[in-house]
C-alpha cells in the first residue's frame, strides 16, 4: 500500500532541512521541530509511510521507558537489525516523525523503530500508527498537572487497546493490575512478564500507591505479595479478574543494572526481542555489556569523584532510587528538584516519597538544590534530617562544588534529580548538553 504524494516529499524535504539547520546551530537533532514542520505540511505524514518497509515498537508506561527502549535497541542491534530510537524528552507524535526523518528510509538491514511514548500520548500515537510490538510497563502516579488522574489514563488506554490492530503483539507487565487488565482486552496476541519471586516481596506498603482497586470492577484487590508500589501478585475476589500467567520471569534473566525496577525493564526488553525471534539466552548475553541511558544510573567521573545520576521524577521512581542509594551505604546524596514543564510544575509529590527512611541513616549528608530547593529542604527537615546534615544551595553547581571540597578522592555522590534538573547537573559534569 503506497500512498506517497508530492506533499509527503515536500514535508520530508522541509523536515530534514530543519534538522540540518538545527544541527548547524548546535541544537540537538532529536528535537520535535522537524516533525512539527513535516506534520504541518503533511498532517497524515505517518499513514503515508510505506508501512511494510520497517517494524515498529512502542514502549509505554510511567517509569522505565528509556532504559527498556535502550535495552531493546541493544539486543536488536546485536542481531543485525538497524534500530532507530527517539531521543529522550521527544516522545510525542511530532517526536516520532522527527526520528523517522533523521534516518534514510531504506537500509540493507531490516529497520526497526523503537519509540518511547508517554502515557498521555499513547492513545494518539496508536490511532496514528499501529506498532508491531507494544510494550506496556506500568502506570504510576506522575504529574497530575499534566496527565490527570491515573484512572483517566487507564480509561484512555483501555479504549485504544480495544481498538488496536489485531496483529500488534502486546508485551505487558502482569504484576501491574491496570496494565494487565487493559492488555487482556486486546484481540491479538499478548505476552506477559512478571517477577514471580516471593523473595522480592516487600514488607511495608508504600504510601504513593494508587491501584489497589480492581481496574475492572473497582473493588479492593487481594495481594499475595507486593514488590513495590502496586506491583505484585494480585487477584480480585469480586469479579475474578486476576494476575495472568507469565511467559518470562525474574529467574529467566540477568539484569545488567541494579534495582528491582531494572528486573522489570530487562524482562520487558527480552520478551519484546522474542517477538523478533531472539531467544531469552541470546538477549541476556547481549545485555551483559549494556550501559545505562543517560541519567539512569549513569556514572560520571568528575574531579576524581564518582557521581551517579538517578532520574527520579515521581514517587515510585524516587522511592526505588532512594532504596538503591541507601542499600549502597552512601555518605552523600544530592537532591535536585525542578518544577519546569518536563518535571511537572507541581512539586506536591515530594510528600508521597518515603523520605522518612532517612531516619535510619543519621550520618548521611543531604545536599539539596534546584528551582525548588527550599521545598525539598523543607521536606527533608520534616522527614527528620538534622539541620547540620542538610545543605541547601540555589545553584546545583555550588552544591557539587561543596561536595568536591568536602569529600575525598573516589568518594561517591548519588544524585536524585527530576528531568530538567538531571540535564542541568549532567551539563555541569560533562560540560555539554545531553
Amino acid at each position, binding site marked *: 500500500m503506497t500512498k506517497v504524494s508530492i506533499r509527503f516529499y515536500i514535508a520530508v524535504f522541509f523536515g530534514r532541512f530543519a534538522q540540518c539547520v538545527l544541527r548547524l546551530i548546535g541544537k540537538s537533532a532529536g528535537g520535535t521541530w522537524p516533525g512539527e514542520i513535516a506534520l504541518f505540511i503533511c498532517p497524515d505524514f505517518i499513514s503515508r509511510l510505506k508501512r511494510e518497509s520497517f517494524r515498529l515498537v512502542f514502549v509505554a508506561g510511567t517509569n522505565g521507558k528509556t532504559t527498556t527502549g535502550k535495552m531493546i535497541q541493544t539486543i536488536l542491534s546485536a542481531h543485525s537489525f538497524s534500530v532507530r530510537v527517539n531521543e529522550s524528552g521527544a516522545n510525542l507524535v511530532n517526536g516520532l516523525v522527527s526520528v523517522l526523518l533523521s534516518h534514510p528510509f531504506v537500509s540493507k538491514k531490516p529497520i526497526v523503530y523503537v519509540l518511547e511514548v508517554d502515557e498521555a500520548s499513547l492513545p494518539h500515537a496508536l490511532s496514528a500508527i499501529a506498532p508491531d510490538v507494544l510494550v506496556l510497563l506500568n502506570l504510576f502516579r506522575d504529574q497530575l*498537572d499534566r496527565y490527570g488522574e491515573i484512572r483517566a489514563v487507564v480509561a484512555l488506554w483501555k479504549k485504544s487497546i480495544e481498538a488496536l490492530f489485531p496483529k500488534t503483539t502486546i508485551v505487558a507487565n502482569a504484576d501491574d493490575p491496570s496494565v494487565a487488565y487493559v492488555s487482556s482486552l486486546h484481540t491479538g496476541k499478548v505476552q506477559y512478564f512478571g517477577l514471580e519471586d516471593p523473595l522480592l516481596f516487600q514488607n511495608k506498603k508504600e504510601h504513593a500507591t494508587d491501584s489497589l482497586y480492581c481496574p475492572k470492577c*473497582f473493588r479492593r484487590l487481594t495481594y499475595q505479595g507486593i514488590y513495590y508500589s502496586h506491583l505484585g501478585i494480585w487477584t480480585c475476589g469480586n469479579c475474578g479478574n486476576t494476575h495472568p500467567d507469565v511467559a518470562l520471569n525474574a529467574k529467566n534473566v540477568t539484569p545488567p543494572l541494579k534495582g528491582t525496577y531494572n528486573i522489570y525493564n530487562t524482562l520487558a526488553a527480552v520478551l519484546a526481542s522474542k517477538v523478533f525471534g531472539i531467544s531469552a539466552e541470546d538477549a541476556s548475553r547481549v545485555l551483559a555489556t549494556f550501559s545505562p541511558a543517560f541519567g539512569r544510573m549513569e556514572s560520571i567521573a568528575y574531579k576524581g569523584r564518582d557521581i551517579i545520576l538517578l532520574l527520579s521524577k515521581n514517587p515510585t521512581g524516587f522511592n526505588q532510587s532512594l532504596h538503591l542509594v541507601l542499600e549502597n551505604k552512601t555518605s552523600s546524596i544530592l537532591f535536585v528538584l525542578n518544577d519546569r514543564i518536563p518535571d511537572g*510544575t*507541581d512539586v*506536591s*509529590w515530594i510528600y508521597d516519597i518515603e523520605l522518612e527512611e532517612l531516619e535510619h541513616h543519621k550520618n548521611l549528608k543531604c545536599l539539596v538544590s534546584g528551582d525548588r*530547593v527550599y521545598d525539598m529542604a*523543607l521536606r527533608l527537615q*520534616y522527614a527528620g534530617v538534622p539541620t547540620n546534615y542538610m545543605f541547601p544551595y540555589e545553584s546545583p553547581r555550588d552544591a557539587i562544588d561543596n561536595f568536591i571540597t568536602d569529600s575525598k578522592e573516589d568518594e561517591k555522590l548519588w544524585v536524585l534529580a527530576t528531568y530538567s534538573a538531571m540535564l542541568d547537573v549532567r551539563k555541569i559534569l560533562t560540560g555539554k548538553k545531553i
Partner: protein
Amino acid sequence: MKKLSLSLTIGWLYPELMSTYGDRGNIFVLKQRVLRRGFGAEVIEIDHSTTGKELSRIDMVIGGGSQDREQEIVISDLLKKKDAIKALFDSGTPGLFVCGSPQLLGHSYMTGDGTKLSGLGLFDMETIHPGAGKPRCIGNLVAEICDDMRYARGGMRKTIVGFENHGGRTILGRGVKPFAHVLVGNGNNGNDKTEGALCNNFIATYSHGPFLPKNPHIADYLISHALYKKYKKNIALKALDDSLAWNAHEAVLRKCGIVI
C-alpha cells in the same frame, strides 16, 4: 517548671481515599509542630469503621483531595457521621480541608458527568464541575488571608501559597466568608477572587496536597485553636525555626511576581 502534659488528637479523614497528591504532608507538619512544642500528638485515621465516640475525641480534623469515585465513597460514609462532624464544627474544633475536600462541606457538588452529590451542608456554598470540556484550574495559587483570621491571634503573615488543580467551581453563599483573596491563580471559581472559605474554625482551600509545609502560620493557627478549644485557655506556642518554610513560601511569591 512543671512539665506540660498537653496533647492533641489529629483526625485524618479517609487517608486511603483522600490522598491524591502528597496530602499527608499536612499531617506530618501538624504532628511535628505539636511534638516540637513538647506536647503529645496522636493521629487517628478516620474511615468507615470510626465510631461517633472516637470522632468526639478529635481536636483537629484534616481532609485531603480525592478522585471523583473516591469522593462518592467518602461522602456516602461521611453523611452517616454527619452529627458527630457537625458537633466538632459547632464547638469550634479547627479543621483544614484542601483540594476537593471542601466540596464535602458545602450543600452539594455536581460532578463532571452531571451527578449531584449532597454535601454535609456545614458551609453555605455550592460546587459545580462544568464538565470535561472546560479547562481545569491548574497552577500556583497565591492569596491574602482574610482580616478576621489574620488578626484573630495577634496578627500573622498575610500571604498563603499553594498549588491548585481542580475542575469544580465553588460559589460562596452569604453564610460563609472567603478564607482568602486571590492574588495569583483561580481560587474558588476564577471570577470573584475568593479563595476557599472560613466558617467557625474550619478552613477550606482549593490549594491541594501539602498546603501546610509552606504555610506554617496556618498550621500554628490550627494548633492554637485546637489547644484553646481543648484546654479553654490561650496557650502560647513556642516559636520554631521556620526559615526553610519561609524561604520556600517566598520563592513561590517571587515566582508568581509578587513583590515582598
